């Protein structure tokens, strides 16, 4: 697989399938792992970091992961490429900004990705569409077990997997759900819900926030604690909480649909109208409008657009994606025009 191939198709996790896919966009599980005998990346010399990359790549080459995978070194990537992968949730900001030796391995379909030499030697991630955290865990667990046959991970009986930051020690696992909660936002119940989630020891935050305002009504729920519980129990907890949040959003949707139907329809069809006609669209506006359109599809109001088209648009209208597609750097103004063109094309607007 090549970098350009990523542009041609959405990652599997954007397909809009899986349980509660009308509200839960995606499930992600990542594991932090370190080689037992090498100092952590931020203390490592250039030589040591290269050795870690070689060890990991060698192990990957012998695993089932290798089939059709994309392997890239940070040093060989342009700034645009890096941001492109960041927008696809395949790498982190810390990773692309490190300026040191690092590699990324991306499996076919973007289900599994591994960052080598981020905060830890390995950050192994699995992404799934909808509410499928347990499946994502099984996938990432398998990769981890497979890799552990060819390298020794830093591990202690008491503290589990040892990580650069003690907040990740133990399971080294961070599991998260990306959830779309437009009606909890409209009905102003969102802060209550987020607060309740925080009380349960989980972290809740707005996604895609620009500046101080979260746009697009997308939120992320993840575990804070990584030591003292088994992976399955942590995931079970997040899934349970996730299901409750889904139920709250559903009842908010029902309420608004019965009590304020005209207003809701107006918001949705206005958004649809703008998306099909606008010539200049900023990324913040795009998020807001696509959020409304997605709600319209989920409520069965908008019937001629599929949910995965909205997911695709959320992805490809991001700055680095627009520029990768254009094959050139674009100014913010040029991007807004290109974004408008792309949205109209995908939604068969005017």
């Amino acid at each position, binding site marked *: 697989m090549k970098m350009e191939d990523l542009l041609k198709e959405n990652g599997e996790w954007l397909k809009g399938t899986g349980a509660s896919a009308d509200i839960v966009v995606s499930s992600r599980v990542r594991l932090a792992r370190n080689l037992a005998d090498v100092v*952590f990346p931020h*203390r490592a010399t250039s030589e040591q970091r290269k050795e870690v990359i070689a060890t990991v790549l060698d192990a990957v080459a012998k695993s089932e992961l290798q089939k059709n995978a994309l392997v890239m070194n940070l040093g060989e990537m342009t700034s645009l490429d890096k941001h492109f992968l960041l927008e696809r949730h395949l790498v982190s900001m810390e990773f692309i900004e490190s300026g040191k030796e690092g590699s990324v391995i991306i499996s076919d379909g973007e289900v599994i990705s591994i960052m080598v030499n981020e905060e830890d030697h390995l950050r192994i991630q699995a992404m799934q569409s909808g509410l499928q955290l347990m499946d994502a865990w099984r996938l990432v667990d398998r990769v981890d077990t497979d890799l552990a046959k060819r390298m020794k991970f830093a591990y202690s009986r008491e503290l589990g997997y*040892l990580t650069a*930051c003690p*907040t990740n020690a133990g399971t080294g696992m961070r599991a998260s759900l990306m959830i779309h909660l437009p009606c909890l936002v409209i009905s102003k119940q969102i802060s209550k819900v987020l607060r309740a989630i925080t009380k349960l020891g989980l972290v809740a935050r707005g996604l895609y926030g620009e*500046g101080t*305002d979260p746009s697009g009504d997308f939120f992320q729920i993840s575990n804070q604690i990584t030591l*003292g519980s088994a992976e399955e129990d942590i995931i079970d907890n997040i899934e349970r909480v996730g299901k409750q949040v889904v139920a709250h959003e559903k009842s908010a949707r029902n309420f608004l649909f019965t009590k304020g139907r005209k207003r809701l329809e107006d918001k949705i069809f206005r958004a649809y109208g703008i998306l099909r006609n606008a010539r200049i669209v900023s990324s913040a506006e795009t998020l807001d409008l696509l959020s409304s359109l997605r709600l319209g599809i989920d409520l069965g109001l908008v019937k001629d657009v599929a949910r995965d088209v909205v997911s695709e648009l959320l992805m490809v209208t991001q700055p680095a994606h627009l520029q990768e597609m254009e094959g050139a750097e674009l100014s913010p103004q040029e991007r807004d025009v290109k974004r408008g063109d792309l949205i109209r094309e995908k939604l068969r607007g005017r």
Partner: protein
Amino acid sequence: MFCQICSKNKATVHYTELSDNKVVEIHVCEKCALEKGVSVKPNFLLADLLAGLAGLEKVTTPKEDRKCGNCGLSYSDFKTIGRLGCAECYRTFKNELNPLLKKIHGSLNHAGKIPAAGDKEVSKAKILRKLRSELRELVEKEDFEEAARVRDEIKALET
């Protein structure tokens, strides 16, 4: 909900903090979170928060600034950057780190995945050897509580 610090912007960053041994919920806007040193990047770095937490922890600050024999990181380095230098640091700074880990996670006992060992019998023998030497050390140090725990572990492995 508005930011608890500036009361102007919407609170978009939500987390819990430990203050005076009480868990306090914090709801702030991204701007104030940044000023507070809480990272709000897509991959929210708990390490940044942790550096603050470790800094507050006066009780556990060692008298002399010891360094890890393996990677050379000192505990004050850790407090500044919020990251340890190597796996060995967990042992070197055990006395300072364990209370911190306990605060963060509420536990000091890993209950999750155990990496599969290449050869079970060989690794069992290895673990037993290590445990027995640990037990000897603990008895010498008169840490009987910990020694009893290790002894039980040896018993469990032997049966």
